[in-house]
């Protein structure tokens, strides 16, 4: 593990980020159930995949193009809980969109998180394009597109992989495979078991990894990033995971999966498992854990309070920023 540069300090930070994301996520559901925000898209269950991959990159420097499920990712990338809550409550100060977008449509120029819409798979070409510029401008950056397995049915996913392969671009296509696209199980979405199977027909490496293990995800992502920086082109990474909650707060997953199935997967809860491992490996102590939890609670409370008090956007701003200033 020291080989991959994953120090105990970093592992601790990873753990903190995962636990923070989970706690923040739990808070969002509570607030939603209280009627204080209409929509939650949840990263609950995906924390290891998102945080493990983020830590393998130059956070805030490399480009990410997130999926809506990627709250843990953007937290790892430098977005603060306050910023997440401002977005959730659709407040004027929301750095992602100024309250214009529904929750989970991330974006921050400062953090090199490309703004995202809701049409799945468009982000794959954006990441390839960011990488095309990086290659030309030799800025040393890697771009990463995140996406669900359902979105690989979209043609644009394939177009992006092909384009990136032909131009040997420094880009990683990072799939979070949770086995469902809303209610549609993977077997109705595709015939193959592994999303990584698509890599071969684009002549790029394709790797499937246990997405509940942040260390394995870290290692695989690091190798892909190194490869990209060496100018050897794109990699397709598949992190196999599970979402523990419905697709969104508008969904009811009892229609399409049993409670037993969900329970079974809970055995592999990435946050619980990583915590146990760090305790067992003595990377953290019980006392550390308690302190971290306390800190997280404070941070989540602070974010909630702050964002709750923040003003909504003024209706007059509706017409702003359709266009920029002309002719620079």
């Amino acid at each position, binding site marked *: 593990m020291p080989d991959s540069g994953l120090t105990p300090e970093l592992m601790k930070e990873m753990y903190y980020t995962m636990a923070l994301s989970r706690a923040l996520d739990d808070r969002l559901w509570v607030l939603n159930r209280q009627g204080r925000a209409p929509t939650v898209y949840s990263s609950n269950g995906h924390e290891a995949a998102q945080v493990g991959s983020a830590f393998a990159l130059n956070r805030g420097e490399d480009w990410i193009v997130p999926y809506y499920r990627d709250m843990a990712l953007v937290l790892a990338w430098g977005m603060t809980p306050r910023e997440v809550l401002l977005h959730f409550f659709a407040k004027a100060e929301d750095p992602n969109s100024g309250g214009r977008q529904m929750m989970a449509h991330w974006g921050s120029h400062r953090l090199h998180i490309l703004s995202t819409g809701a049409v799945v798979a468009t982000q794959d070409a954006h990441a390839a394009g960011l990488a095309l510029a990086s290659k030309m401008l030799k800025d040393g950056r890697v771009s990463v597109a995140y996406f669900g397995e359902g979105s690989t049915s979209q043609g644009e996913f394939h177009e992006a992989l092909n384009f990136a392969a032909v131009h040997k671009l420094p880009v990683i296509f990072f799939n979070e495979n949770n086995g469902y696209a809303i209610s549609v199980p993977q077997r109705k979405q595709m015939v193959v078991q592994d999303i990584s199977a698509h890599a071969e027909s684009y002549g790029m490496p394709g790797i499937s990894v246990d997405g509940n293990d942040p260390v394995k995800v870290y290692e695989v992502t690091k190798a892909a990033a190194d490869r990209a920086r060496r100018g050897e082109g794109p990699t397709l990474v598949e992190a196999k995971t599970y979402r523990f909650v419905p697709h969104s707060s508008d969904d009811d997953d009892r229609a399409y999966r049993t409670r037993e199935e969900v329970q079974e997967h809970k055995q592999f809860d990435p946050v619980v498992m990583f915590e146990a491992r760090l305790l067992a490996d003595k990377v953290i102590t019980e006392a550390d854990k308690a302190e971290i939890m306390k800190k997280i609670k404070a941070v989540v409370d602070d974010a909630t309070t702050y964002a709750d008090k923040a003003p909504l*956007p003024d209706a007059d701003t509706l017409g702003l920023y359709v266009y920029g200033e002309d002719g620079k």
Partner: protein
Amino acid sequence: MAQMTFLEAIRETLRQELARDERVIIYGEDVGVRGGVFRVTEGLQADFGEARVIDSPLAEAAIVGTAIGAAVNGLRPIPEIQFADFIFPAINQIVQEAARMRYRSNNDFEVPIVIRAPFGGGVRGGLYHSQSVEAFFGHVPGLKVVIASTPYDAKGLLTQAIADPDPVLFLEHKGLYRSIKGEVPEERYLIPIGKADRKREGKDVSVIAYGLMANLALKAAETLAGEGISVEVIDLRSIRPFDKAAILESAKKTGKVLIVHEDNLTGGFGGEISAVISEEALFYLDAPIMRLTGPDVPAMGFSPPLEHAFMITADKIADAARNLAKF
């Protein structure tokens, strides 16, 4: 006669058509087990089986593209696009293939499909779950674009759309799904596509609208009636074809026309309606033809103040019609 919501009227129409014609199939994302994200197709897979109510892969172009092939080979597919916002990946198949198949083959082929898509805002959908897309499709010869405003109309128009030999885009305003109820006969009936319905007679101002907007216009008319202003409400029911005769008749009668749509102004379908009036009824007009529409921004904001500022309301319609009446 049963009282039904708009959503139920659509579901029961689908059920009736699935039952009476084995060639009818439904597919789209989450339409099966889950019954659609709005529950429009709830229960249909259970009743008609996985072969006829299909949970398709997440690929709109493939959904429409395969529907075209299936229609040519004898089926009557009713594909669903989960939100109208996600129709753009399929627009190539709709515009260049479905709508053009008959013309390009000199009438040798036809594509009888009905593409259903929920559209419109005011339901906290934000930029990507609120769009009005009718102007893109109202411009396309070979395609029909239907937008119903009541449960009764929804059934008659959808039944007709399914019977129609040409591709029909059937847009359902999300704001109507559960907000309105109405009588819907159990037996099958058809409402012709291209005939407007004068939902209210009036003599001072004509409001031309469709879908949710027609309902809001009726509310506004009610308000204005109390003020002594008589508003006629023409519900277009379809924008391609659209009922020129009904529009012109009303415009000539009242001399004052207000066109309402939620879609943004510039290049919206209201321009077409206005143009037709000024081409053929200019000298009957007592006031400029007015349009009340969504603002020219890329889409509807999510935050309540932005959404409210964007949305058309009965009050806004009443204000506009009042001003026009006073002109």
